[in-house]
């Protein structure tokens, strides 16, 4: 099943032009209204999150549903400096970007190697990676904790990034292998005739051809790593190393009555994802279904 490909094949469209025009959407106008009402309901909590963060806490307590006018950025200042969100933000960015870059790089290489090999040994390696799709990595937190403890990676952003990079390998390899297999092998033969080494062929010819898939995989890995909570909760100790989700729990505990500041913290944690979403909606939606039908 090509998950998102809802366009009908050309011949079906051609053979049934009249019928296509007749097929009415289910539910008519009532259905459309219901869909938009649900959309508004689904987004209302997010709108409240943003608008509440722009209001003074006093106002918020008096009238939780009021408009954010005039908007104030005070609660952002509280969260960003007093609440150390500046630090958490940089940590999250370092860990997530490091992990995504490393994971995508090694997974792209591995996917290419696997797609172009018929050896039984590499077939076994591929099955090993595929088994990783089914392993709930969170259950391995204790051995990971002791492994990190043993090699001095506790309380280390590098350790966290390495772990995330590794846990993303199965999914990325799985998606990218499929893409590499679709490319004709004549490409390599031509490159070899021109005197290119396998590495040159990979970097100059193959990678550019699978760029959209690489981008999808990278973006789709970004979201769960950015949002992850258990690993930083267990593997980080020092407040200055915290990523946003763990930092948020500390901040929530210390500012229980300052709702406005907590809302600001929630928005800060979410903003990069929204930006990413606006830049790459198509890839994210495609990635959602790719992740689903794995």
């Amino acid at each position, binding site marked *: 099943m090509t998950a998102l490909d809802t366009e009908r094949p050309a011949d079906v469209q051609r053979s049934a032009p009249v019928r296509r025009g007749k097929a009415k959407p289910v539910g008519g106008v009532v259905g459309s209204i219901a869909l938009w009402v649900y959309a508004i309901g689904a987004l209302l909590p997010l709108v409240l999150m943003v608008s509440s963060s722009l209001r003074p806490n006093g106002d918020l307590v008096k009238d*939780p549903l009021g408009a954010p006018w005039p908007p104030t950025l005070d609660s952002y200042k509280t969260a960003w400096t007093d609440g150390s969100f500046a630090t958490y933000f940089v940590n999250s960015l370092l860990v997530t970007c490091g992990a995504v870059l490393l994971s995508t790089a090694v997974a792209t290489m591995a996917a290419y190697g696997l797609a172009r090999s018929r050896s039984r040994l590499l077939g076994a390696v591929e099955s090993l990676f595929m088994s990783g799709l089914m392993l709930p990595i969170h259950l391995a937190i204790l051995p990971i904790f002791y492994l990190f403890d043993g090699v001095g990676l506790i309380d280390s952003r590098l350790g966290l990034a*390495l772990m995330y990079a590794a846990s993303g390998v199965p999914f990325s390899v799985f998606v990218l292998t499929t893409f590499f297999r679709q490319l004709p092998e004549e490409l390599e033969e031509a490159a070899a005739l021109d005197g290119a080494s396998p590495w040159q062929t990979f970097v100059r010819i193959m990678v550019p051809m699978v760029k959209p898939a690489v981008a999808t995989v990278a973006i789709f890995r970004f979201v769960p790593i950015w949002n992850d909570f258990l690993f930083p909760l267990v593997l980080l100790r020092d407040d200055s190393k915290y990523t946003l989700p763990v930092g948020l729990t500390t901040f929530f505990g210390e500012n229980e009555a300052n709702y406005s500041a907590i809302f600001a913290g929630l928005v800060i944690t979410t903003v990069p994802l929204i930006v990413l979403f606006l830049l790459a909606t198509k890839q994210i939606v495609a990635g959602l279904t790719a992740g689903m039908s794995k």
Partner: protein
Amino acid sequence: MRRRTSLLFVTPALLLFGVFVLYPMVTAFSYAFFDWKGTTRSDFAGLDNFRTLFTKAPFTTDLPRAIGHNALFFIGTMLVQNTIGLSIAYFLYRRDRTRRILQTLYAMPYLLSPIVIGYLWTLLLSPTFGPVNTLLTKVGLESWAVPWLGQPSTALWVVVLVSVWQWIGFPVLLYGAALGGVPDDLTEAARVDGASHRQSFFKIVLPLLVPAIGTVSVLTFIFAMEAFALPYAIGGSTGNPAGATDFVSLLFYRTAFDSGAPDAVGTSSALATLLFVLIFGGAMLATWVLRRQERRITG
């Protein structure tokens, strides 16, 4: 490509995966079969750690309750998510112009961290300051303005609904794709033969969606068994109020990192192994049942 060359391409990923995923995963199970004193491993213990889970406090009370909550969480999300998700997908089907934008809007909450979602709803549902209760009071439903997350009778169901709200984009997309695969000819032939919308949905469309419903169910099951961050944000590590939102993964976390019990490593590893067996066994069983159903329909 020569085997040696392909192997070179695969090696970095294999090393990373082996050290940080495969090795910890495999040792995670071995931990469960040894006696532990603090962080030192001593004798082989056979199934002793598992016996502890079923005979000793606090597991005798906490574990059945947590498993029950995981089960209710799964059943609740399944029912609500499939009903709403499928209805939305069915309404979106054939709405070519608005489908993409609405699908995108429904997928928005998926982006947020479960921690953010948990805190967001804790604030929205707060009894002292809380837009939800304010709204309910304003529209004359004062009796509905209850401390949603403060009373055991409602807290678990709030977790269920919040989770559905976050993940609804998934079934909408997947059912949308599956509906795209239902040939228009079939439903139209039924219409010509005088079938109502309802009849053509239940007799033709729904049976064709069984594989998609199965996929959603299996993934929801795995997800429900692993749930950690959302309940942690809403009810803390002990599943407040009064353990009403306690889950197996929270119990695992408490046992491993909070209990300070001398045999914590052994018992928590046994718990992780048990959870793995439940997830893996459940997913396998569901897939098997599904295959049989599919064969019955198509064969």
